[in-house]
């Protein structure tokens, strides 16, 4: 029997279980897209029948980092850009947990860009939601890695001379095995995508378009959006890297011309997750490592018996 009874239990859970009591109430600005992520995540967790005790939600710093204050589950509000290394180690330590990491575009594509690239490359079995509002929100409106060229802010008064990050293409190149984009203004699709992302065994990257009505007034509010899977204009195979790459490039170009495309872009269901790879080569135990510390019958090895022979 598992030492963690919450993991794998089959009781029904509804969305309200993931909502705290009266306090704390979200402190996001009126009209903020972050509400959409919270709602989609709660809906997805309930639909998947997860319990608050078997989920670990790791966030970074910024408006997005407050997500786990308003979501009932185990949470780790980490430091700017560092949610991924913390989340992926927790998953390795206890593969029974459902691990979700979340951060903003500055957090995920800027300061944490290196971790993003490597977590995707390693294909950890987890979901990464990036709140992409093309601006730094909590520090009051500076240019972010996804802000378009020419974007003016107090720190880029002449307008940004930098090309924005192309998150979907970057994710594919880095090695993520599930890549989608959704938007806060599209709650049904958002929930469905997060359900799929959590169910996917591997690194799932969801670029979540979240409007910032306070600091990014000039930006499109991502409406009207087009769901590429629902539209007859876009026909491509999400299992095919090249077709997915072309579609991503088109989507990323189109966004800056005012057309918002969302949907699933790439799904590789065959590639084993990092944990599976590590188990297959004998670098990770079959049973969740964390459980061993709760197993009174486990016989712990001693260095004296294992290694000292070679030092005699």
């Amino acid at each position, binding site marked *: 029997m598992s030492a963690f009874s919450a993991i794998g239990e089959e009781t029904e859970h509804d969305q309200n279980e993931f909502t705290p009591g009266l306090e704390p109430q979200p402190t996001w600005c009126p009209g903020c897209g972050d509400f959409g992520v919270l709602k989609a995540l709660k809906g997805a967790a309930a639909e998947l029948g997860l319990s608050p005790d078997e989920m670990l939600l790791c966030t970074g710093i910024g408006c997005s980092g407050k997500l786990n204050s308003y979501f009932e589950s185990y949470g780790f509000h980490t430091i700017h850009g560092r949610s991924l290394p913390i989340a992926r180690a927790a998953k390795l*330590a206890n593969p029974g947990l459902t691990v979700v990491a979340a951060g903003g575009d500055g957090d995920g594509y800027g300061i944490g860009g290196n971790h993003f690239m490597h977590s995707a490359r390693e294909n950890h079995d987890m979901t990464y939601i990036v709140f992409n509002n093309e601006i730094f929100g909590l520090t009051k409106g500076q240019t972010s890695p996804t802000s378009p060229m020419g974007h003016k802010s107090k720190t880029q008064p002449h307008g940004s001379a930098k090309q924005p990050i192309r998150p979907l293409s970057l994710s594919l190149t880095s090695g993520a095995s599930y890549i989608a984009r959704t938007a806060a203004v599209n709650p049904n699709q958002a929930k469905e995508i997060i359900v799929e992302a959590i169910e996917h065994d591997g690194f799932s990257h969801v670029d979540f378009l979240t409007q910032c009505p306070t600091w990014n007034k000039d930006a499109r509010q991502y409406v009207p959006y087009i769901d590429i899977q629902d539209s007859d204009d876009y026909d491509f195979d999400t299992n095919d890297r090249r077709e997915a790459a072309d579609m991503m490039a088109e989507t990323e170009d189109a966004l800056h011309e005012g057309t918002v495309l969302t949907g699933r872009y790439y799904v590789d269901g065959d590639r084993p997750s990092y944990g599976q790879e590590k188990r297959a080569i004998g670098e990770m135990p079959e049973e969740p490592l964390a459980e061993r510390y709760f197993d009174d019958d486990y016989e712990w090895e001693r260095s004296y018996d294992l290694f000292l022979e070679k030092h005699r």
Partner: protein
Amino acid sequence: MTDDELIWRIAGGSGDGIASTSQNFAKALMRSGLHVFTHRHYPSRIRGGHTYTEIRASADPVESRGDGYNFLLTLGDSFARNPSEGAYYGDEEQKPLYENLDELREGGVIVVDEGLVDTSVVEDFDERVEENNWHVYEFDLRSLAREYGREVMRNTAGVGVTCALAGIDREWIVELMTDAMPEKILEPNLEILDEAYEMAMDVEHTHDVSVPEGEHDEEQVLLSGSDAIAYGALDEGCRFIAGYPMTPWTEVFTIMSQNLPEVGGISEQVEDEIAAAALALGASHAGVKAMSGSSGGGFALMSEPLGLAEMTETPVVLVEAMRAGPSTGLPTKPEQGDLEHVLYTSQGDSNRVVFAPSTVSEAYTQTRTAFSLAYEYQIPAIVIYDQKLGGELVNVPASHFDEEPNPDLGSVLTEAELAEAPHDASGKYNRFQHNVEKGISPRSIPGQKDGHFLATGNEHMPAGHISEDPENRVFQMDRRMSRVENIRADLDAAEGSNQTPHGPEEAEYGILTWGSNQGTVFEAIDRLNDDGYSVKALSVSDMMPYPVDEVEAFIESVDEVLVVEMNASAQFRGLTQKELGRYGEQLSSLLKYNGNPFEPAEIVDGFVTTIVENDTLPGTETKFVPAAGD
């Protein structure tokens, strides 16, 4: 200290197998019943560049490299040759000879591999030989190695010659080679060993240097400080490590990575040191005993996750293997310059445990203590040591490691306890309660029923919700900070102390030191007392919480104290004055920061010159910094 000792220095080029050869040789000497201590000196290069290893062997316990040495085996650097005159590396292939003569003792032996090394390039070589009564033996070890095997086997030839000249029983080497080498290379190596031995027996022996005879009263193992730290972690139930390679921390990382999968643990080599420490936090948060570590520059990157561990009360052990700084400094040379870095790095009031083991055996025990305190008190613990301790091989009684494992996760509640535990109105477990015993508010582990809470680096209420409430802030700060005082009380109440005294109980003078200088200082203390001075030492290992009472009693018991450490800014002396709040007039410093560790004679001379004779130190090897007001 004993006069009857062999200090064997093997010098050659990096990549010539100096380290592995000396390791086997040291083990053979240990098996023959001797106490051994090795000292490694190597450049920040992979192939080529002068490197040496020293092995001190004696019938009595040895705790330092000693002063100089009495047997030099010089092999020449086969990778260093650069035909162009005036090239950057110049005539480096000769360095193993000319760089090593200054410290060779009078009457010492020099074995020259004439296949590569030419004594005529050393200015005044013959005069110096005569002056110092050195005994020079030239053999073409290179040709011998080539004849029976490969050039790299000239190490074996050198060992064979050493056995003949120093009176070492060849069988000890044969036994070890047989254990360690695959059959294919064993045969030529044994032939080379024998040929070299016979060759050296055939020449006339003029020297008076030989290996002593000894006997151990219990079984010994040969371990480095890095081995001991890794084994301490494993025995304390650590099953997760994440790291990024950096000299000299890489040694611990490598040992753990090779052994963890064998015991069902996980090792992760990751993208950078920020990630490494963050992974250790993630694994620990999820209920596994975890560690990470680095050396100075890499540890600098870890200051962010370290602070997060303090604020979220996530247990973790970090090891910091010091090398000379600032920045990338001297990558392969020892220094004790990261003490303040480790004590105070990261924002806010620091709130951590820092141990600085002094010996290989302490590296094992204190790593275990670091883990058990980290998990009981939910606080980061750091083990800080230098390149010298990490790399030196010393014999330790095998029984020292014959200890029971301790996988206890510390202050974690069971699901039954969680069901009864206080929860916040939001539904979260009150993970960070205000008034708890010893400041420890028990943890829950993700996946445990009724245990979910929010861990955050922001100030937070008992269930983890972010809060700027002033009253809660003070409660939480006081509780977190009180853990360090409670740890001090636990350490004081424990059997034995991490601080090691040496010398007579009543003494006029004191030497205070920390970390890997311990053995060298203790040897110096013995010599000083033999010479009629009245000196004792205290070697301190607890850096935070600081052992205020023990150090104060030590300072109070003597007239004057010399603080010996390997850095330029007297960091440990500064810490002592800060923690004790006084004694500025009683503490002066003897410092060394040229990339080489202290030798006992430097401490003896430094003490006599500065403290007793009030004179100034000649040369630049060591430096004296007087007490405040002097």
